[in-house]
């Protein structure tokens, strides 16, 4: 999809991949609404984007908060126009160090599902109907290889990401006739705070920077019409063409 002038909503945009995606999409002309819980960091990211000539609006809010869903979607549309691109990037690992499932509190699993699955679903429900009426729009779920591989100790997170991948596929099956596209993208390992929290012993210098991964994902978004609707892609094997 062409991004210039389009309204985009990016969650988890205060750091890591979310911040890098917001910056990259703004660089190619999209109008960005950024969502994250931390108001200070989020404002800084938005200010940096504006300083380089992009359009960015900071909406400090929690995607897991039921009462915030209409505030997020409504404020974003008021500020950047109809949302044509929705990126579900915000997510939580649950308690770290990561635990075996039998040691995971039910409440913690509940919370991970709320942030990684139900919150995004609520936003999609609010935003994707207007996309279907317009006959265009893209909802992108940031996934993980933990959605596919059964890594011990990644239970809560892995379950939520596997469910999110399937949510994306079913939404694609339902809304393909109306022209709304859904993608799941596994960004691969990156040098982020989340990676450091999950794997504190990893060599951060060996990991790709979020900005490099964001460029690949932005390329996927520009080519979205050529990708099968509902597909799950890996950023690492994506050949940047556009």
């Amino acid at each position: 999809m062409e991004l210039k002038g389009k309204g985009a909503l990016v969650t988890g945009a205060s750091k890591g991949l979310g911040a890098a995606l917001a910056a990259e999409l703004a660089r190619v002309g999209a109008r960005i609404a950024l969502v994250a819980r931390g108001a200070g960091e989020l404002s800084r990211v938005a200010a940096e984007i504006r300083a380089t000539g992009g359009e960015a609006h900071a909406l400090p809010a929690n995607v897991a908060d039921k009462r915030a869903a209409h505030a997020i979607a409504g404020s974003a549309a008021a500020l950047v126009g109809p949302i044509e691109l929705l990126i579900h990037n915000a997510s939580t690992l649950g308690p770290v160090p990561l635990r075996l499932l039998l040691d995971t509190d039910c409440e913690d699993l509940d919370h991970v599902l709320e942030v990684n699955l139900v919150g995004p679903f609520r936003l999609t429900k609010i935003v994707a109907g207007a996309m279907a009426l317009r006959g265009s729009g893209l909802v992108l779920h940031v996934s993980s290889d933990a959605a596919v591989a059964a890594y011990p100790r990644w239970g809560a997170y892995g379950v939520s990401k596997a469910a999110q991948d399937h949510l994306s596929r079913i939404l694609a099956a339902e809304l393909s006739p109306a022209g709304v596209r859904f993608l799941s993208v596994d960004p691969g390992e990156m040098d982020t705070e989340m990676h450091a929290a999950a794997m504190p012993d990893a060599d951060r210098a060996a990991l790709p920077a979020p900005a490099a991964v964001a460029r690949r994902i932005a390329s996927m978004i520009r080519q979205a019409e050529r990708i099968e609707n509902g597909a799950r892609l890996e950023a690492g094997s994506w050949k940047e063409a556009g």
Partner: protein
Amino acid sequence: MIPARWPREDAASERLLVVDPRAETFRDARIGELPFLLRPDDLLVLNDAATLPASLAGRGPRGEPIEARLLGELASGTFRAVLLGPGDWRQRTEDRAAPARVEAGDRLAFAGLSATVERVSRISLRLIELRFDRSGADFWLALYRAGRPVQYAYTSRPIELWQVQVAYASRPWAVEMPSAGRPLRWDLLLALRARGTRFARVTHAAGLSSTGDAALDAALPLPERFEIPPGTVEAVASAHRAGGRVIAVGTSVARALEGAAQGGALIEGTGETDLVIGPGYRPRVVDGLLTGTHEPSASHFALLHAFAPAALLARASEHAERAGYLTHEFGDSWLVLPRSTA
């Protein structure tokens, strides 16, 4: 007529009175039958405005309780608004006490948000321009925190913001829900699409249905902002070329489309309209109408006279009353079919 006091679970089974001006007949149906009542090549035009949390409870300059209802954004952070006095959602707007009198320069305080009265209208002292002390993202989040949807005295309990959104809502422009589109869930919209019905959209800042102030109510509708996207102009032309009919979902869509065609042809772009459609008005764009069930005394009912003969509407309305059709925002619907054979 009896209002629907609460949104119903199964929108598809809500009642639909099909009024056929050509045959001068009407008959009972259900919303779920729409795909069989419209024809392939018909164009359904919907208002994709999301509903604002337009009702703000707060305090006037001397601490008096007031409610401000936002009517529409004039500039970033500046809104036209109507003030109401003390009271709550259980009271009809016309029974609410008058608000404390305000003047330009007065400050109004809401939860986490305050504003300055910029101007008081000559139409009514309750109609004001309000400049909020925040703008941009700060303003919008604060508005969603402080505001509630405009309430209706007939509902069995207060309604929440999600209950006044259509299933395809985009930018928050509407003060009250564009309610004709409320029963259109995606199951039904996709069924219509699969049969060949096309969709187009307008965004229309549907305003307040009543303010409780006789002078102001007499001046309704105030000019309302609309946007006609280029794709809608093309879709209307192509529907008419193919012999399809343009069905407006709601009076706000009819007003936007007709308002944007006052020069003769429908044109794209944004504008404001205070066009009143009623008896004697000859529609230029809209052929038929899906709308709520309205009392014969309502202005929304007057609009129907541009689409069907008065005698037929009167008979249909008597039938709806007898048959127990429910009115208002969560009520049953009417489909007024096109007059022409085209």
